[in-house]
C-alpha cells in the first residue's frame, strides 16, 4: 500500500524530533491524550502554542527595544513562554527560555538579547519541523496516525 512508506517516513520524522532534542517526553504525554474521540488533539494544542508564542515573541521584541530594559517584565513574558513550551514538550525552546530568565535575573542585557535571537531560531526550526510532521500525519489519515508507535 502506498501509505506504508509514508507511515515509515512519519515514524522516522517523529523519532528524529526526539533524538535531536527538539521534543521531550511531554510531547508523548500529549500523544497519549489523543484518541478516536479527539483525533487531532496534539495538533490543536500545538496550534494554540503557535498563536500564543507569536503574541509573546512580539511582546518580547517590543520589550527588548525599550531602554533601559525592564527585566522584570521580560522575565514575566518569558515565564509564560517557558510554560507553554514546556507544556508541549518543546525542549530546545524551553532551554533557551530558561537561559533568558537567568540573564534577566542578573540584569544581563546582552545575554538576554543574544539568547532571544537564539530562541527565535529554535522556535522557527521547531515550528517548521512540526508543520511538516502534522502535514504528513494528516495525509496519512486519522486511522493510521492513531496507531503511531509510542
Amino acid at each position: 500500500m502506498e501509505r506504508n512508506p509514508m507511515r515509515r517516513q512519519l515514524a522516522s520524522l517523529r523519532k528524529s524530533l526526539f533524538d535531536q532534542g527538539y521534543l521531550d517526553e511531554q510531547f508523548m504525554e500529549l500523544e497519549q491524550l489523543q484518541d478516536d474521540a479527539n483525533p487531532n488533539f496534539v495538533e490543536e494544542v500545538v496550534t494554540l502554542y503557535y498563536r500564543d508564542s507569536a503574541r509573546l515573541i512580539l511582546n518580547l521584541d517590543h520589550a527588548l527595544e525599550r531602554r533601559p530594559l525592564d527585566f522584570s517584565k521580560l522575565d514575566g513574558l518569558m515565564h509564560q513562554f517557558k510554560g507553554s513550551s514546556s507544556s508541549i514538550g518543546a525542549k530546545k525552546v524551553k532551554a533557551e527560555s530558561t537561559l533568558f530568565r537567568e540573564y534577566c535575573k542578573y540584569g544581563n542585557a546582552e545575554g538576554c538579547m543574544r539568547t532571544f535571537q537564539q530562541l527565535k531560531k529554535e522556535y522557527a526550526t521547531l515550528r517548521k519541523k512540526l508543520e511538516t510532521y502534522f502535514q504528513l500525519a494528516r495525509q496519512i489519515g486519522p486511522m493510521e496516525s492513531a496507531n503511531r508507535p509510542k
Partner: protein
Amino acid sequence: MGNMATQTQFHVLAVDDSLIDRKLIERLLKTSSYQVTAVDSGSKALEFLGLNGENEDEERNSSVESVSAADEDHQVGVNLIITDYCMPGMTGYDLLRKIKQSSSFKDIPVVIMSSENIPSRINRCLEDGAEEFFLKPVKLSDVNKLRPHLMKGITTKTEMQSNSNKRKGSEEIQSPDRTRPRYNELEVV
C-alpha cells in the same frame, strides 16, 4: 458518553490563565471521566462558585439566575478545584485562601499546579489547605492522584467537620486551627 440520570460525574473546576494549559488540563480531566469547567482567573472561579467577595448569604440569594455552581445543595456543584499558582491578579494561593475561608466551599479539595519547584511555596500551599501540589506540566499520573480526594468528598460529606485534618506532606504541622480565626466571610481583596 451518555450519562444515565442517576450517574453523576465528578465536577472539577480548573483555573489557569494559560490557554494551552487550560486545554491540557481539561483533556486530562475529561480522559479521567470528570466533568470540567475551565476558567482563566481566580476571580472567574469565585464568580462561578457564586462567591464574589461579598456576604455569602446575599450572594447565594442573588446569584440564582447567574451561571454558577451554587444551588440549594451548594457543595454539589464542584467536587474539586485545581488551580495554577502564578496568575495575574489573584494567585492560586489567594484563591486557595478564599476557598478555605468560605463556609460553603472550604471542604472542597483544592489542588495547586505550578511550573516552579519552590519548596517554601509548596509547603505554604499544603499548610494552608491544598490537598496536592502538582509540578507542571501536569501528567495523567498526576490526575490519577485526584480520585481519592474526590471519593473522600462523597463518603464523608455528611460527617465532615470544619477542622478535618487531612494533609499531604510528611511534616507534622500542628497549626492550632486550619481555618484561620480571622474570617467567617470573604474579604474583598
